[in-house]
């Protein structure tokens, strides 16, 4: 470090120079403090989203940098929430980045005592096969009293209240097409 610079950075001298004799303000402001910027200003893009928790439907702003969420806060433009969030909504970045979040398929074979690895493609194939098999084994053209049934009563699907409308639409459409009628969600709960 050059001497003059060293001297300038010496607190006592800065205190004298900047009239901050007690070293309470500007004189002791560190370079980091001086250069500080909020990380939301460094986001590459900001996405308007909606909180995933309750049904108030608060607006969220999702700040993204380098393909990662750097922050989530309320969207002031929303006429419902006006930029505010509750603790859950405010924690949604931590939810998306939870230390307990799972990123890989886990498989447990019948009578197995531990999870095993399985590729997503294999899992999808296996699930499709199981639906086809169970459905074929248990298909009912008619009810016991001879009324039309066109269904399997051996498969059920649960979930939906936390999902998007488009997702629920595909679930109900697919299950109806497959003759699976036990389609239910948290609306009952």
């Amino acid at each position, binding site marked *: 470090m050059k001497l003059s610079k060293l001297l300038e950075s010496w607190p006592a001298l800065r205190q004298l120079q900047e009239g901050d004799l*007690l070293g*309470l303000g500007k004189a002791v402001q560190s370079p980091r*403090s001086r250069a500080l910027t909020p990380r939301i200003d460094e986001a590459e893009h900001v996405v308007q989203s909606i909180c995933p928790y309750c049904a108030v439907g608060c607006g969220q702003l999702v700040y993204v940098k380098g393909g990662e969420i750097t922050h989530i806060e309320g969207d002031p433009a929303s006429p419902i929430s006006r930029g505010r969030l509750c603790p859950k909504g405010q924690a949604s970045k931590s939810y998306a980045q939870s230390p307990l979040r799972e990123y890989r398929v886990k498989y447990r074979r019948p009578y197995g005592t531990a999870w095993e690895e399985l590729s997503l493609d294999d899992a999808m194939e296996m699930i499709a096969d199981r639906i086809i098999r169970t459905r074929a084994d248990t298909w009912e053209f008619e009810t016991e009293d001879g009324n039309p049934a066109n269904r399997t009563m051996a498969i059920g699907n649960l979930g939906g209240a936390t999902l998007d409308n488009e997702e629920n639409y595909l679930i109900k459409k697919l299950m109806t097409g497959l003759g699976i009628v036990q389609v239910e969600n948290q609306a009952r709960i």
Partner: protein
Amino acid sequence: MSTLETARPDGWQTYGDEKKERVGFFTDTSVCIGCKACEVACKEWNLIPEDGRVWTGESYDHTSQLGANTWRHVAFIEQRKPLRVDGDGELGVDAGGDGGADLRWLMESDVCKHCTHAACLDVCPTGSLFRTEFGTVVVQQDICNGCGYCVPACPFGVLDKRHLAPAPDLPAFAKEDGRVWKCTLCYDRLKGGHEPACAKACPTKSIQFGPLEELRERADARLAKLSAEGWNGAQLYGRDPDDGVGGFGAFFLLLDDPEVYGLPPDPVVTTRDLPEMWTNMLAAAGALLAGVTALTLVGGRR
């Protein structure tokens, strides 16, 4: 003390033209719903480590107090006391049971007071604690050496050294840290023109952010309204520039005496006599300075 009588925060004047309007918080507990959005918003923004998972039994408060890892803290006080000064159950509730005393549940989001005369600032030997251009008090983490002088200096127990418990599920935070941490009033956000995270999140605007003068006016009007409505115990805390710390940069409207919330009733800057001491010592310091400068210059030439 003359310095105590002025509402100008120590050190703020040093910014000259760069000085910004002094800003702060007005926390109005009469609309606080105790949701703790402020605690979480603060942690999300400031990337504060988790503060332990201890069930305390203190009503719904399990973070217990302000500290290095909790910069906003919501206190919950369950009281057998009418909410109205005339004892009416209106705004409160008949608790039933034996006494029939009224029940109320007070909630208050506490935070660093950003004192006008801040003892923490005075005692910090490294210049880590400093007054910002916004009139707020901030610990500079690149400077703090963890000496801890500021910890006992704070009349509110706000300053705290960070002691990280092993957190296996939090690898990002799993490192030791001996520095002191507290509310920065979101110094970085202020620099970018954003309001602090807690105030932005607060669902009922119990936490209001703004120019301090404006907040004080708002608070006065609010107190007048509540008093007219007969709210029991409504009072402002830290609003008065003539109090022992020259008024808070972050002040409160409480519904009972400060002690009830675990706040000191009459806080005094612990370094009250320091300015006088400084004046007396200034000459000596000047002499020392000259000497040291000379030595350094010699050393530099070597």
